């Protein structure tokens, strides 16, 4: 079975600072994808960043970057220069890439508050 664990239910950070959100996962697959989704108060699920397991290089998207440690099954998200608009729930998710059963497994989420 695949599981995703986000151990920090809530965090806060000052505007312009850097914050790291942690995520660990468990899977027996060798071919999979990891995601961070953001859910602002509007409730819309927004993809922040994606990492392919076969790639050693960590993904980056502007102020967002990940630290992907495949052996440790760890996938943390770093947000640099935090902005008020980053206030949201953040979900880590795992997608197994196997024909016929492409299902996402989510962590329980973490509430991030960016303070002015």
């Amino acid at each position, binding site marked *: 079975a695949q599981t995703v664990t986000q151990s920090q239910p809530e965090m806060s950070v000052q505007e312009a600072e850097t914050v790291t959100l942690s995520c660990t996962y468990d899977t027996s697959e060798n071919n999979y994808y990891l995601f961070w989704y953001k859910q602002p108060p509007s409730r819309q*699920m927004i993809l922040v960043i994606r990492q392919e397991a076969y790639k050693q290089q960590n993904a980056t998207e502007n102020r967002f970057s990940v630290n992907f440690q495949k052996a440790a099954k760890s996938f943390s998200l770093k947000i640099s220069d935090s902005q008020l608009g980053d206030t949201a729930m953040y979900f880590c998710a795992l997608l197994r890439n196997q024909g016929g059963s*492409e299902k*996402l497994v989510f962590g329980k989420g973490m509430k991030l508050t960016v303070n002015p």
Partner: protein
Amino acid sequence: DAGITQSPRHKVTETGTPVTLRCHQTENHRYMYWYRQDPGHGLRLIHYSYGVKDTDKGEVSDGYSVSRSKTEDFLLTLESATSSQTSVYFCATYPGQGGIYEQYFGPGTRLTVT
């Protein structure tokens, strides 16, 4: 953004009544999913579809059924709603081809069962 709509967006219903939520997509994606979101649980998969008339259960499927008669529509039915089914329901789609490994989400439906 993928064209995914959900209807209704909000619904209040009474215990024991049937409820159907609709998800409509304009992207011709092969896979469609229904999730529920509850505090402390993240998103949990209810049912999913991997093609027209092809569906399978997720981790929290009890009390729910689904149907997919055409590519663009995926219906979630609560045959007899219970208070434990009060939740926010999300539909998602996934291309399943073209090297795009990302699920796209609808705006969500807030369902309250009284």
